[in-house]
């Protein structure tokens, strides 16, 4: 599977224009460029392949329907699209937390970590998968608000202001949740013996 590529601003504008006109190839290019990134973000929140898959489809359906609203003056396509995807995924996550009956499977899916091989032997690969699974479990143990902020800041690498805009909460609250989330995550990882002293 090829990694997500970066679209130039004018390339994004052209793709959207072609999509609006009904060009299937242009839409396919948008899907293949962003699907992996959106699926991974969805997985960080849901911890389930099936749920992340469903959520990714919903996100793309929503993007397809709102392509008319895209205006290049408000940022390039990647920013607009990922902002929309994040908002939808966060809304879904918050909704599930408020309605526990809709919560996805608690345990991290064993079959989901098909990590990219970056060299090394099979043993290393198994260890990497196991570590990734444990880290995901540790993230899942964080309270909802802290988990959201930690994912957006330390995995999605969003700025404080971007998180403020995405969550619609004051900057002080964002900073406080990131701080508390990091501390709690470190303590959880220590208890799970993932962090060596």
């Amino acid at each position, binding site marked *: *599977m090829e*990694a997500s590529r970066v679209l130039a601003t004018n390339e994004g504008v052209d793709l959207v*224009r*072609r999509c*609006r*006109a*009904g*060009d*299937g*190839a242009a*839409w*396919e290019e948008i*899907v*293949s460029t962003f*699907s*992996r990134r959106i*699926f*991974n973000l969805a*997985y960080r929140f849901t911890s389930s*392949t099936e749920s992340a*898959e469903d959520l*990714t*489809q919903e996100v*793309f*359906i929503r993007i*397809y329907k709102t392509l008319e609203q895209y205006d290049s003056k408000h940022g390039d396509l990647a920013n607009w699209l990922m902002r929309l995807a994040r908002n939808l995924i966060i809304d879904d996550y918050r909704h599930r937390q408020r309605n526990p009956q809709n919560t996805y499977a608690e345990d991290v899916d064993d079959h*989901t*970590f*098909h*990590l*990219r091989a970056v060299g090394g032997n099979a043993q290393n690969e198994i260890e*990497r998968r196991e*570590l*990734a699974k444990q*880290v*995901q479990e540790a993230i899942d143990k964080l309270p909802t608000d802290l988990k959201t902020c*930690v994912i957006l800041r*330390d*995995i999605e690498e969003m700025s404080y202001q971007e998180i403020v805009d995405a969550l619609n909460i004051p900057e002080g609250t964002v*900073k*406080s949740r*990131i*701080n*508390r989330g*990091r*501390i709690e*995550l*470190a*303590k959880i*990882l*220590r208890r799970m013996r*993932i*962090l*060596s*002293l």
Partner: protein
Amino acid sequence: MNYENEKIINCSEFENSLTDYLDKSLDSKNNKACAAHVLRCPICHDLLNSVKHSIVACGEIPAPKVSLSRLEAKILARTMPEFEMRCEEFEENLTNYLDGFLPATVFHRWERHAALCNSCENLPGEVVRSLATLVSFKSDEIALPEGLHNKILQQTIGTIEAKTKKASIFSQIDEWIRGLSIPITVPQLAPIAIMLAFAFFVITQTASADGSVSGVYQQSFELAQQTYKESSKIVLGDKLLINPASREPVQGTYVSEENKK
């Protein structure tokens, strides 16, 4: 050699003079006596060597390493307990410390707490290692499930053969027209544009009855022509014969009451 004046000492006397002998502070006679005794007595010879080694070994003992920051923190905690930081406050400021955003006063209190508090001293290191684990974790992207790509295409454009779905010529033209726009890129020009529009409106309403730009020019020419004719007749001495009708103001122009008379 003359041995008659040589001083001879026993082991006890040698031991009493040992330190002075090593320090080379004995007078010549006693120094020679000690040296002679060491040569003769194997026990005192061994003693001398042992003492020499002990002195060297003592010199090689490193000075006790005291953490000055910890010591300083202890002193300040004892002397100025009001400036101590609580564990909760320490945790609240952890990210700001790592980001380098702590003001100097809080920074020093934070570091003192980190040096002294047994329950907090490992926390900064754990958080840093936790963040490093997340960096490794996020670089391990999960592969896209088989068939997801096609599912998305099917649900959005109704087919997985995206390339077969072409844009119609009308929708292409429509998009092309949508793409055409003449944006005012400099907002500061907007007032100037309004002033120009207003000026155009005023001029066309006062100088030209029909409100057109061409009307303004046309009536300007007529006025100029009429003025020229009247002036030339006065200069040439002709009787001013002006058709009263021709003295009527051109429609849309202003003529004062004096001129009417």
